């Protein structure tokens, strides 16, 4: 898998200035890439562009050499809100993507259970969505995203609507899952700590210039610990970059 973002600009129809200006970024196969930045810096827009839910006004996004023109199952998105369908129960939700992709029924069941087990939700397979807690819903959403053999998994602040404790647990588990599967992940967050914890590289988007300010490689072995000295150093450095221009 190769994903190349080339000179991408996005300006919304009635906006005074572009939301994103001249973004250049290459995402390597199997990489965990985090994008941080203040709210309004265009990080969600960048994710929507890769997902094909928005179209760039300039430049192009190439997935395996082919320009992205619309949404597709090779770039599944996990949203901040769980986006599970309330008319389906847990396992029916997890099967949705496979149904669309035309995976045979017997395999759907097997794969859905496999991923539900991975996110520790197997016991809840027949539960209606509204009876699950916020964290459980995001687990199911993660399982649903994982069932598809996507080229890249796009995650738009998936843990930011959860309480801190649940969010911390979720990111630890996501790290474990990612270490086992080595999928390419494009992860948006406003939490610098979360980014340093999860990412191979952290991209800092500047709210002022509407473009990439810096890309920082996190050279820390996994599993990572937030109290580690080097971790704290990374965190401070990136936090400063995110907040730069404020004072």
């Amino acid at each position, binding site marked *: 898998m190769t994903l190349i973002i080339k000179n991408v600009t996005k300006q919304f129809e009635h906006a005074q200035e572009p939301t994103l200006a001249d973004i250049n970024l290459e995402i390597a196969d199997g990489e965990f890439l985090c994008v941080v930045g203040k709210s309004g810096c265009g990080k969600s827009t960048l994710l929507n562009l890769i997902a*094909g839910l928005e179209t760039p006004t300039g430049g192009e996004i190439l997935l395996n050499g082919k320009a992205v023109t619309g949404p597709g199952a*090779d770039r599944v998105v996990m949203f901040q809100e769980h986006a599970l*369908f*309330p*008319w389906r129960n847990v396992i029916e939700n997890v099967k949705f993507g496979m149904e*669309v992709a035309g995976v045979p029924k017997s395999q759907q069941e097997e794969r859905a259970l496999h991923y539900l087990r991975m996110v520790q939700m197997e016991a809840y397979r027949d539960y*209606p*969505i509204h009876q699950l807690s916020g964290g459980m819903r995001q687990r199911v959403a993660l399982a649903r995203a994982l069932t598809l053999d996507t080229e890249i998994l796009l995650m738009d602040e998936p843990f930011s609507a959860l309480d801190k404790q649940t969010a911390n647990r979720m990111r630890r588990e996501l790290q474990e899952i990612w270490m086992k599967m080595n999928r390419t992940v494009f992860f948006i967050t406003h939490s610098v700590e979360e980014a340093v914890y999860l990412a191979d590289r952290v991209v800092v988007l500047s709210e002022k210039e509407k473009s990439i300010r810096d890309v920082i490689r996190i050279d820390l072995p996994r599993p990572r610990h937030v109290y580690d000295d080097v971790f704290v150093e990374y965190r401070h450095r990136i936090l400063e970059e995110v907040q730069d221009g404020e004072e």
Partner: protein
Amino acid sequence: MEKNKKIRESLQTIGFFAALVFLWQALYVLGTQVFALWKPYALPSPAGVWAVFWRLTADGSLLRAAGSSLARGFLGYVLAVLLGMTMGLLMNQFGFLRRNMRPLIMGVQTLPSICWVPFSILWFGLTEQAILFVVVMGSVFGLAVATDHAIRNVPLLYKKAALSMGVDKKQLYWKIIFPAALPELIAGLKQGWSFAWRALMSGEVMTTCIGLGQTLSTGRSLADMNQVMLVMAVIILIGIAIDRIVFGAVERWVYRKRPAQQER
């Protein structure tokens, strides 16, 4: 405990209505016999209504009237649903249609359905079709607006999630938009039925086809207060029964997996 509470509440309900009927009968006796304020034929009474009920049931006319009203109402309703949903879908699909149709529909909807009766009679004569026309006109616009609304209120998030999992346009409609809009759609269908049922009665009262509306206006011609009262009660009861039994079952089915309220 829970069960005892339920039994107690049902008993209270029965007691309430029994008291209401008793009060009604008492007023009738006081008003027509003790104080002789009104002539006995000018006031309906529970006993009189009951007598008419037996008379009209025995000769089968009540059942026949209710049956033909229901059949006619159902036919008109089905036509209105087909037409209204098509209109709603078109309005949803084409922005210019919605922009121009909505104010027009809102205008037409302020017209009580009985006002369609003269128009309908001039066009169709005193026929079955005239009543059907009134039923359709009385409910089709509400159904169109409800369909458009239900589809438009489908959260964008569901569509985005589905698109990112690779659905095509057809799958988006059948797997996402339709099930997501279903609760609101059912609410619209339910309201549409109550509009259709009212319009049906307006049409039937003004024409001469066999039905509850006609039985009602016969009661008026005969100056039979009890018959008028009885038919009104039957119209109400059928309305409630369909709302509770038919739509109740549909709603229970729709909400078998969802939260009971509209919190989605």
